[in-house]
């Protein structure tokens, strides 16, 4: 990796500068030129040393913040956003790979995790093992997982699941025209919802999640206890 450039400014002040004339370069070149003029006048070079020291300290601080940002790079995450007030989850009836029908209203009284996904979506693939782990852990406790695939056909998805390290045992349903994801206002994949026992949208997560995280389990147990 190599640092390219950094610019921080508000919309109103943003000006495009070619890389050869970045603000930092202009600033430091001007400062250096000013110090050289003092040398020409016979003034000692302590000012130059002070300037260099302060510049080094500044760059060290900035470099430290970059290293820190790298080391704190988040993974899938585990947070869900509460949806208030809880609205009724749009009902649907979809088929799985074997043509068996699943209707959301049949899950009334259970907490349901609906995961909108597709095989071509890398984070969908990444979160699948954790989703299976969660389902295995809580699947017997009035908790269900419905993975709603977007646009793809059962043959393609069946082949895909065979490539996974962990074969999903929860229902994979097919939303071939993306009508259901539209009803849920899904803009990007993956997006997941937690439905409470009354069939209401309780939480949403946009982007991949580590469903096997203790905080996710805690959230679901709280919904189960409601």
């Amino acid at each position, binding site marked *: 990796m190599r640092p390219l*450039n950094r610019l921080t400014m508000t919309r109103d002040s943003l000006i495009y500068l070619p890389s050869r004339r970045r603000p930092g370069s202009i*600033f430091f070149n001007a400062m250096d030129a000013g110090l050289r003029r003092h040398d020409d006048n016979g003034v000692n070079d302590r000012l130059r040393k002070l300037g260099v020291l302060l510049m080094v*300290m500044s760059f060290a601080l900035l470099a430290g913040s970059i290293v820190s940002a790298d080391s704190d790079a988040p993974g899938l995450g585990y947070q869900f956003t509460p949806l208030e007030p809880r609205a009724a989850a749009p009902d649907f009836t979809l088929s799985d790979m074997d043509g068996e029908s699943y209707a959301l209203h049949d899950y009334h009284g259970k907490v349901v995790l609906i995961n909108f996904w597709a095989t071509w979506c890398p984070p969908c693939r990444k979160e699948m093992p954790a989703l299976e782990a969660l389902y295995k852990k809580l699947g017997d406790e009035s908790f269900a997982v419905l993975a709603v695939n977007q646009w793809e056909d059962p043959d393609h998805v069946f082949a895909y699941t065979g490539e996974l390290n962990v074969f999903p045992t929860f229902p994979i349903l097919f939303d071939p025209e993306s009508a259901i994801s539209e009803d849920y206002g899904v803009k990007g994949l993956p997006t997941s919802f937690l439905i409470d026992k009354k069939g209401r949208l309780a939480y949403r997560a946009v982007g991949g999640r580590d469903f096997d995280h203790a905080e996710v389990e805690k959230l679901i147990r709280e919904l189960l206890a409601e």
Partner: protein
Amino acid sequence: MNAALLMKARVVLLVSLVAAVWLVLPAVGISAVTEHVSPDTGLSSWKSEGDALDFELLQVLPDYVRAVYTSRGLPKTVVDKVSSYCVFGTILRNTTERPLSYRVADWRYITPDGVRHRIRTKSEWVAEWRDMGVAFRWSMLPDDQTFAVGDWGQGFTTIALQPGSRFALEYSWTQDDKTETRMIEEVRCAPVEPPDHD
């Protein structure tokens, strides 16, 4: 003004400016852009971290774009049109404990001649596909999204430039009614063929 007074004034200016860099910039968040070349593919990616919104651009080969859309069963006209664009995988992430939102319509790419161009949005692609009788609405980065805590997203961003072209990308987001804008310079479109690499 004598030379000694002028020198003192310059020292004060020097210390003030360095202090501004040292103290003020970290407080408003500094975006650090790094370029990474994949040892597997030789393709480049650019990642900006340290802001409320992490932003990553990944070069995508035209052949890969064709493969993605062909394997979705989309017609050749759709495949050819999308793969004629300079396509990037784009990953965005809210790194803060407060919601933020973005709008692709607000972003611009700037060509070396200094001209600012708008970016074709997902809605425009989807509308074109709909007119062709294709209901597919995935793969492109959503036009706009509000990311709550922990939310992130990804999708293709399409730039109307030839393979290998260079440009700067200006992107922005809004948090707490304040819009922040950043620029990634010297971004390069993927070449036609996979680059040579170790």
